[in-house]
């Protein structure tokens, strides 16, 4: 197995909450991304997926755990050293309007990473920005405009261009299409796909939209209340979601096709407050298959397919995998 591009080892992020308590937005999450791989992070509110994105780019410090980038422990790297490394790890945010300095032309915003990380002259930077605009299909006239003058789709292209300018090896995308119109989303996804194929950059796609993740990623992590409950090849997880939460999540998806018959899983209540987590398995308060054992400790990961030596292992944190009793019965429902 190759050395992973980036590895998170038992990363924890706590936030102070009312009354002096601490909430774990991310709790002992371990993951790794191979060079050129696209990994998806899926989860609902409180899952910690956005926090993971911030942790990975060190925009917020970890409470405990380690981040290893290309073999180097960057968990507590100094701000100065981290700055240089930032050319390698870039981020695209959910809100394209908010992610750009409103007082800078988009051309200048795109040139910034070049100014910070490369020795190019001003003229060379102008040329590079022009090339970037071509690559992301942005009309050159837009470069002189300010963010408020462009549409959401164009702005997201600007953000992507800015993110790839320094030729990073890892691109973290936090809900890159959620704020955009339907017809614009496809264009952005296509752009990201092209970029990955052309440059070999690794992608971390954080999203709540299952179909987007299914299309764009090779491997998938399912998060629930800050912990990983299932991870493995995307294809496998979508074909046969193993964890009861994953099964519930997938069954709630509404495909844009009225001929698809929905197979619904029974109503399982709402996500508990992070201040009031269930004991043991975090899903135990809602799981139809819960047993006494589930409330004693968070289940260990059990492997369904593949082996740990290979990065495409499919593992699930559920006590019922051992005796294959982890399948929820579905009720078919006509729309």
């Amino acid at each position: 197995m190759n050395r992973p591009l980036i590895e998170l080892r038992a990363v924890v992020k706590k936030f102070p909450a009312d009354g002096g308590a601490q909430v774990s937005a991310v709790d002992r999450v371990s993951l790794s991304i191979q060079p050129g791989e696209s990994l998806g992070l899926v989860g609902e509110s409180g899952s910690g997926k956005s926090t993971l994105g911030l942790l990975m780019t060190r925009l917020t410090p970890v409470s405990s755990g380690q981040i290893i980038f290309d073999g180097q422990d960057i968990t507590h790297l100094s701000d100065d050293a981290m700055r240089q490394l930032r050319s390698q790890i870039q981020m695209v945010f959910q809100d394209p309007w908010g992610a750009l300095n409103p007082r800078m032309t988009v051309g200048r915003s795109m040139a910034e990473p070049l100014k910070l990380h490369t020795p190019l002259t001003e003229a060379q930077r102008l040329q590079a920005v022009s090339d970037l605009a071509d690559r992301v299909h942005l009309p050159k006239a837009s470069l002189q405009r300010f963010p408020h003058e462009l549409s959401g789709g164009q702005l997201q292209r600007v953000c992507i261009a800015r993110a790839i300018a320094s030729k990073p090896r890892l691109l973290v995308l936090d809900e890159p299409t959620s704020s955009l119109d339907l017809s614009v989303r496809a264009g952005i996804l296509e752009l990201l796909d092209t970029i990955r194929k052309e440059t070999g950059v690794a992608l971390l796609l954080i999203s709540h939209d299952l179909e987007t993740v299914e299309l764009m990623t090779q491997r998938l992590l399912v998060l629930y209340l800050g912990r990983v409950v299932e991870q493995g090849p995307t294809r496998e997880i979508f074909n046969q979601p193993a964890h009861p939460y994953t099964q519930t999540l997938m069954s709630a998806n509404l495909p844009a096709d009225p001929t698809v018959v929905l197979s619904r899983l029974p109503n399982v209540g709402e996500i508990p407050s992070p201040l009031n987590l269930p004991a043991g398995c975090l899903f135990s308060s809602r799981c139809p298959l819960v047993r006494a054992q589930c409330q004693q400790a968070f289940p260990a990961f059990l492997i369904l397919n593949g082996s740990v030596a290979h990065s495409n292992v499919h593992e699930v944190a559920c006590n019922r995998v051992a005796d294959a009793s982890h399948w929820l019965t579905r009720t078919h429902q006509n729309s």
Partner: protein
Amino acid sequence: MSAEAASPSHWLAYPLGLARRSPTFVVGLGIVLFFLGLALLAPVIAPFNPTQSFSYEVLQAPGGRFFFGSDGNGMDVLSRVIHGSRYAFGIAVPAGLIMVGIGMPLGLLAGYKGGWLDEALLRTLDVLRAFPTIILALAVVAATGQSLVSMVVVIGLLDSPIFARVVRAEVLTLRSSTFVKAAIAVGNPSWRVMWVHILPNAILGATAQLPMRMAWAVRISATLAFIGVGIQAPTPEWGAMIRQGAEYVITGEWWVALFPGLALMTLVLGFNLLGDGLTDLLDPKRRGVGK
């Protein structure tokens, strides 16, 4: 989302558009510019030398030679009022510059870095809030000698923490915005984040405060002069003029105090309206143009 509308077809179109969106701004600007004009053109438009004393025409009522009348020293009130605007701006503008020069970096650092600097600023503000500023100004100016320069410096210094607080508030809001996170993510060092990303955006919100502070500067310098500290007669400063005129109100010579008083009031109003209007214009971004 299209680009901005095409250029106006008539030269009045833009000012009219502005007037529609914020009449307050236009009126305020008009007043301030009027007095600025007076200040700049004073030697040309004032009918008399402001300190020229016509000993035989003391306390003349308005009309005739002296449009606003003459004061107790036989000096033309109109000319003195016109020249008074020089002092008003002569104090407000340098004091404003000091205020920005100190307050802006102070607010920026305090807001971005926090720490002891922020604490120090907040405590200073607490002291200023508890202390009547007039007394403080009075004490300092009286102690440092009653000159124009000391007035300017004191007012500028007193204004700085207040301006710094406004800048600090803007910076705090901006610090948690996405584009600042993005700027850090791209690899900007702290100083660039502050200088290139936060400052230009913080200035906008703070700019509206500037005219308010200038209004205060004008008012307080007049107040100090009125009390008897700082500039004194025969210098044609409005506060000093009102001080002199106050004595004559009882005996019926109302014009000596009224005209400088009106001028003072109008200019301060003008600055306040300007500040208000600026807030209007800057706050809901381009409302009415539509997207």
